[in-house]
């Protein structure tokens, strides 16, 4: 059982025959090969995977409790600085909590909200995009109208208002962000759906009498899946950045939960003398977001490089 298809071309003529064998690798093999040689994808995947593992195994990786305050140990700089110690690799914050530990637990917040918001936005956006792209006409106009309304609204201000009204917990923040970021999903899904819709195999399915629901799920969705994954990763990165900003402003995750944005906000008061309090969580956000973006770009390159040169 091999995943390689072999084509054989035989030229027949009065003269001796020549056999040419052409190996055509399956699409999966092509993608795997591309994936393993794409530096952006590898970097992104490694970092994201590492972050997920750290977030999941945080209790195993660190002896400290992210919420345990110890005022005798406050504001110790990271190990490489003058007054640092190996007991606290990244130092402690103003409440004496180990920074590295809080960073690790903070990864949970970022990943959960990022993933959750992207998933929710993806479901909403993809559904609307499929419907609008497939049915066209006034249905499509309504979908585009929704997109235009969403785009006109100032996202941050709306998010801030909603959090003020509904409170800031991981759940509510995820929900609110998910409800605010579906526009890119719609645009891409709609356009791919429109293109797929006029493809012959869809017309064939319609002719046979397949229900529209089945056609959308069975024929159109698989085509769109690649694009959705790419957009989802990009939106996840955006969600993480926005959550950090909201928490920084104080209208996001509430203390003492270790959200990275919140850590930066808490460190702000001390930033002139203990800049690491601000620098460290920011770098964590930067690295994770860049990794997710590169992962998304990498997936796009691997699954559909025809779009690029």
């Amino acid at each position, binding site marked *: 059982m091999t995943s390689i298809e072999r084509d054989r071309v035989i030229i027949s003529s009065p003269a001796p025959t020549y056999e040419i064998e052409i190996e055509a690798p399956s699409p999966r093999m092509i993608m795997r090969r591309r994936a393993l040689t794409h530096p952006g994808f590898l970097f992104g995947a490694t970092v994201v995977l590492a972050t997920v593992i750290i977030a999941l195994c945080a209790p195993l990786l660190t002896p400290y409790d992210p919420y345990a305050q110890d005022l005798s140990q406050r504001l110790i700089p990271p190990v490489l600085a003058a007054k640092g110690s190996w007991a606290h690799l990244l130092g402690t914050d103003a409440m004496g909590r180990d920074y590295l530990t809080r960073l690790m637990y903070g990864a949970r917040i970022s990943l959960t909200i990022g993933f959750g918001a992207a998933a929710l936005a993806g479901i909403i956006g993809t559904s609307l995009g499929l419907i609008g792209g497939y049915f066209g006409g006034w249905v499509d106009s309504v979908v585009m109208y929704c997109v235009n309304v969403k785009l*006109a609204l100032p*996202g941050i201000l709306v998010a801030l208002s909603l959090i003020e009204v509904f409170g800031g917990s991981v759940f509510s923040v995820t929900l609110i962000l998910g409800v605010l970021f579906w526009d890119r999903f719609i645009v891409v899904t709609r356009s791919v759906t429109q293109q797929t819709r006029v493809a012959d195999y869809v017309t064939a399915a319609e002719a046979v009498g397949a229900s529209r629901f089945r056609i959308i799920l069975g024929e159109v969705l698989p085509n769109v899946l690649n694009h959705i994954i790419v957009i989802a990763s990009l939106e996840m990165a955006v969600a993480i*950045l926005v959550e950090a900003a909201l928490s920084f402003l104080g209208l996001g995750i509430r203390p003492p939960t270790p959200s990275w944005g919140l850590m930066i906000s808490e460190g702000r008061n001390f930033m002139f003398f203990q800049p690491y309090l601000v620098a460290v969580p920011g770098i964590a956000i*930067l690295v994770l977001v860049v990794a997710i973006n590169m992962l998304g770009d990498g997936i796009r390159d691997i699954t559909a490089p025809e779009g690029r040169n």
Partner: protein
Amino acid sequence: MSRFLIHRALIALLVAITVSIIGFTLLRLSGDLASALAGDTATQEQIAQTAHLYGLDRPLSIQYFDWVWKALHGDLGRSLFTNEPVTYLIGQRIGVTAQLSVMALTFALLIAIPLGVVAATRPNSWIDRFSLGLAVLGQGMPNFWFGLILIIVFGVSLRWLPISGTDHFSNFIMPTITLGTSVMPAIMRLTRTGMLDALDSDYIRTARAKGLSTRSVLFKHALRNAILPVVSLTAVSLGFLLGGSVIVESVFALNGIGFLAFQSILRTDFPVVQSIVVFVSFCYILLTLVSDMINAYLDPRIRLG
């Protein structure tokens, strides 16, 4: 083309109305705005008094139309906190936000477009990789954090720039850089992609076949085509900057409408919040309309049908 524009204008109007409704209802979604305003310890009677005082006991639709009617006459209500007219408050602060946004956008364009063009003419060179790396960094960095880092480095350690206030031009340098780096990557990427596509096209091949100079091929022929989507993105980015300035204004203590909106949200100062949300949205809608018009003008295929 005018049919096309009228069509767009009508849609814009519809969107504007919807946005006004949404902006209006934002802070009321908790169900009871009056209790929020009256405070945690208020009695039922006090809550009812509060509700009556701000007209919150009337049906929602009445409140909405009343607000719209007054707004069309230039009255956006008064801030619950300072009792000043909202129009006055916005007018006082819009200058800062507008100045910041325009400066940030200009900064972004001055970097993004040249970089995008050069990167496209030398694909896979060091400058191409550098520009892409810059874009990745710009898109990945939380801009409030970047602002803080700038403050630490340039405001404190090096003491080159002032870290707060709005009286002097130099106050705007770090906020401009911070805000500019958030919109720069998308513009650069779009310019680069647009130029790559243009340079790969048949009409550029024709231009070269005619023996035109490199400068003419690049700027007269390629860029002119590549720039069309960038114009749209620029207009949209300006709208985005106006709405998203709250973070940078907070970091640098700038008194713009973003910061005002933020404070008002915290204080449940609903007249201010709903007005700012709607105002920013309207600016965005207007900007997209303007960008459609510019696009239609720049692209003869749209202009002449």
